[in-house]
């Protein structure tokens, strides 16, 4: 691909539950290239307010490229106002994708908090082609943060849900779902994405039990291209950019707080 920036057409933009939206856009060139864990950097309006682009994991790449997002601030609210046919200014696909599990892995456990579930669907779209047990542990704050997750179930993913208030699934945090799964250090692989304290709990659990895995990290971004060095986070190998060296980092490398 010559140019990483393009303007595409919005195909649909729907509210999936009280908090979450799914936007799809027609980008045949992106479709061919994008890998699980990569993201797109979207300009929410033509003007200078808000100023930065906004990064979103690719949620799905089948007929169209889809993002799954929470309308929480000015940028995402502008995104939620887009309708079919609107132009969408997109940079991507960006970032280093998830590594796929080696052949001796038999079980993949995806552990997501809130909107952190976004990169997991495209991952399960790829992994379902292999004979693996796929599990999703999902933590939402309330019923407003839970949607049907039919696409995961269609991919053969076993889904377990926890909410802070117990309005759906188990009452508690995503770590209260660990007991639902039999983790094996030799053949389980973990992917996690969500708020840092949640990923830190997953990391502590994985390291203690000697389970390999990756975390998809977030940091505020300007360029999204590894140019400004603004989105660096600490790893055992020094500062790394989330946008270029990540978002996917090994659980035994990234330093989470």
């Amino acid at each position: 691909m010559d140019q990483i920036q393009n303007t595409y057409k919005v195909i649909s933009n729907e509210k999936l539950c009280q908090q979450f939206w799914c936007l799809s856009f027609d980008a045949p060139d992106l479709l061919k290239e994008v890998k699980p864990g990569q993201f797109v950097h979207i300009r929410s309006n033509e003007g200078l307010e808000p100023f930065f682009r906004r990064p979103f994991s690719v949620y799905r790449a089948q007929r169209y490229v889809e993002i799954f997002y929470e309308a929480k601030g000015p940028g995402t609210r502008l995104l939620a106002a887009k309708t079919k046919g609107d132009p969408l200014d997109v940079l991507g696909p960006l970032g280093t994708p998830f590594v796929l599990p080696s052949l001796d892995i038999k079980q993949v456990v995806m552990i997501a908090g809130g909107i952190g579930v976004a990169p997991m669907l495209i991952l399960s779209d790829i992994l379902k082609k292999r004979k693996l047990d796929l599990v999703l542990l999902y933590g939402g704050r309330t019923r407003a943060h839970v949607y049907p997750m039919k696409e995961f179930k269609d991919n053969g993913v076993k889904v377990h849900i926890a909410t802070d208030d117990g309005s759906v699934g188990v009452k508690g945090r995503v770590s209260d779902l660990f007991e639902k799964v039999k983790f094996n250090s030799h053949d389980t692989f973990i992917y996690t994405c969500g708020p840092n304290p949640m990923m830190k709990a997953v990391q502590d659990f994985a390291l203690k039990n000697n389970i390999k895995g990756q975390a998809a990290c977030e940091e505020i971004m300007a360029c999204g291209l590894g140019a400004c060095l603004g989105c660096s986070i600490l790893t055992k190998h020094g500062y790394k950019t989330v946008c270029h060296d990540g978002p996917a980092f090994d659980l035994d490398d990234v330093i989470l707080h």
Partner: protein
Amino acid sequence: MPNLSIKIGNTTFKNPVTVASGTFGHAEKYFNLEEVKKLGAIVPKTVTLLPQVGNPPVRIWETPSGMINAIGIENPGIDVFIEKKLPSFKKIGVPLIVSVLGHNPEQFVSIIEKLNSQDGIAAIELNLSCPNLGHKTLMAQDAKATEALLKKVTSISKFPVIAKLSPNVTDISEIAQGAEAGGADAVSLINTLTAMAIDIRTRKSRIGNFTGGLSGPAIRPVAVAMVHKVYQAVKIPIIGMGGIAKAEDALEFIIAGATMVATGTINFVNPRASLEVLEGITAYMKEQKISDIKDLIGCLQK
């Protein structure tokens, strides 16, 4: 086709549009190299004598029409730059302005000596003005120190030398005059304005390094005024920057007295901004029937 070529020292650039240090990274990430070749010059991120790891996160913060950054000149150091990065920058085939920073005059001299053994460099820009390194004062806050440093550097550099100035001063034209007296071939301005943002819930700074530098369209009117002021004070060319987002912005700088213009922060939002600026300047000159860019530089009417 209007004549867009300009000169800095003895070096001719085919057009006046470049990019601001620290905002372009590796050009190849931005767009195809055929496009980068159209620019007058490119400027990679500032390099120091020794490698620097940069500041702790959070390093950037979004502000109205701009951003605060405190990257802390994360870079691999001059030796690795020369060995690993310089060859790929040279391969692009566009004039290269290398931005360097020493923490004292001796370090500047060591860096220049190392670059002197290289070729394929169009000019060297001395970053006298990074606000994010915990120094009490910047080189570019002291006209005498600026002059003394420029004397040292220009006496040994085989490349034209540009002094990059800070807006965090009482009178930027005095510093520009110091640079000119020290033999600088050009000055570039402005670097970022010292800035802060506070999280009112935690009552902590948003920025890991506590303070940072403001850039982007928010600072443009300040930058235009400073270019105007410096243009009246010195004879050497000015490279103008600070919030340029489109051709009309760049033309303001040129009319105020800038010989060259650079896009910076806007590259993060619109990676083609520098090319659009170039296209827009050319279109404006055709429309205004101006055949040579030199007729535009500093043509501000009273």
